[in-house]
């Protein structure tokens, strides 16, 4: 046992009894140390940053932040075992990506299997959390809110309050109610999650919420400027203008 590396784990579930089950199943595994228990997603994100656990047992259905939101926020190197009572999307996600999941009620043999599985994966690069979160989302359903993490602070931006998105290298800046929130994601992958009837890619680096566009002004030879209702000015490329036009035509 002593030769084995100690594994730090996080148990996240909004139900006390469900956390108890995991803890109890871990009793016989002395190599695993439960660093913290969290009753919601916010606590989980905070505890993850503080404790840097190797392994996270993560409930899918939780208030405010779901397990998928948490995964998206804690990102890259987390080895996550999801726990869920019943969720076909979760299962779909794991068919694509090799992180394990446990269905409640959780049985001992299945738990051991998942643990073995996770131990083998420790140290290996994980599939991108973003990809996992994307594939866990039901098909044909667009984002209803974006989760952003700044240090240990988590912000939820409802999609209706998102004004525009600006690409900044590997990040996107999400403008909402006069503030900008940075998130590590490419603008293309974010665009794919937004409802194309409400959001338009007006430029290589900009997506705009159609509701916010006050007017379009010509700017230079081939380009234009979109003036938003809060006064922000965004460049519009020729292709972007065509997309904007066709969307406005559809809406008439």
């Amino acid at each position, binding site marked *: 046992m002593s030769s084995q590396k100690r594994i730090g784990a996080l148990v996240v579930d909004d*139900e006390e*009894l*469900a956390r*108890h*089950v995991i803890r*109890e199943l871990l009793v016989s595994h002395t190599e695993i140390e439960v660093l913290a228990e969290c009753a919601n997603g916010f606590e989980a994100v905070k505890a993850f940053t503080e404790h840097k656990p190797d392994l996270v047992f993560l409930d899918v259905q939780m*208030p405010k932040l779901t397990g998928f939101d948490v995964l998206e926020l804690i990102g890259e190197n987390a080895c996550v075992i999801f726990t869920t009572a019943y969720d076909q999307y979760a299962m779909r996600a794991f068919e694509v990506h090799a992180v394990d999941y446990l269905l*409640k*009620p959780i049985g001992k043999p299945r738990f051991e299997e998942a643990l073995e599985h996770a131990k083998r994966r420790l140290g290996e690069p994980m599939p991108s959390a973003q990809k996992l979160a994307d594939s866990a989302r039901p098909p044909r359903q667009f984002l209803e809110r974006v989760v952003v993490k700044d240090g240990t602070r988590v912000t939820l931006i409802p999609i209706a309050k998102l004004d525009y998105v600006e690409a900044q290298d590997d990040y996107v800046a999400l403008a909402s109610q006069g503030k900008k929130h940075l998130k590590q994601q490419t603008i293309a992958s974010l665009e794919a999650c937004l409802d194309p009837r409400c959001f338009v890619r007006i430029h290589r680096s900009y997506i705009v919420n159609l509701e916010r566009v006050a007017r379009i002004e010509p700017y230079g030879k081939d380009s234009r400027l979109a003036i938003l209702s809060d006064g922000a000015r965004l460049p519009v490329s020729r292709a972007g203008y065509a997309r904007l036009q066709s969307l406005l035509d559809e809406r008439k």
Partner: protein
Amino acid sequence: MHPLFTRSRLSLYLLAWVPLVATSIYVLAARGGLVWWQATAIAVPVFLFYAFLCLFAWYPCRATPLGSVSFIRLLLTHLIAAVFISFIWTQVGALFAYAVLSPKQFEAIKSQFGSQVNAINAIGILLYLLCAAFHYVLIAMEDSRRAEAQATEARILARDAELKALKAQVNPHFLFNSLNSISALTSMDASKAREMCILLSEFLRQTLGLGEKSVIPLSEELALLERFLAIEKVRFGARLRVEEKIQEKSKSLLIPPLVLQPLVENAVVHGIANLPEGGVVRLVSEFQDGRLLLTIENTFDPEATITRRNGMGLANVRKRLEARYGTDASIRVDSQTDRFRVELSVPAETGDMRK
């Protein structure tokens, strides 16, 4: 069975023959030299006879339905039938006239109309063809009526099946989560685990049993809710708080089974479960002005996404109340900042459990 053999339809059909009879009476009297009563005595039975004879057009019409046989065959069938029937008619008509009239009068009629026997036959054939066309219209009407009746019946069957399915729904999330709670309790608190098993069994048994009935006393539904909430309280602990204000008088009133349960389940799943600190589910029942008023209210997270708040439960309840009470029941949904409230109002029914 011939579609005309109902009293009202037959009278209408015969009524259509009246102008023809009148015309022929006039012709027989004016041109045949008969007195009015004689003309009437001949024309009425002869045309009555033909009216019934023409009803036989129904059989060839049935045998050669429009659209499924060739036009030539259709035409031939009806022409042969027409000639045949018209021939019978003229012969029987002549025989009848011979029986009724004096030989002298019969001779007079014969010399007057004898040369026009072809024209009379032609009239007979035309009348038959008109009748055949009329029968086709009748058949088409019958068919569409039957199709409509079948469609209505299918709709009713589908609705019944749907209502049955709606009643018998047990949310699998609820079941799996409860089982998970039980599995946790087995090592923590064995007697509590047993209690939970019993609660869950009772809940399931009652749910399955209620699906068979069309109405139950409110008290029975409340007993079901009590178990449901007791199970959910084990899961959510202090996060789930329940307030009840049940008027004693209202308990014996009848409601369709499992109308409140999905709403209370919504209140827990879409309200309490989304709140890290939990919240309150309030249940109120009242008997007022001949109506039963039921209110389910819960706290919810206004920032939770819409889809998580609107379950299928509400739509199901709406449909089932509509099926039973029509427009006499109402559902009001009211959503204020952090409170979600559903108010049901149904006519107060008491007494025997009506099927």
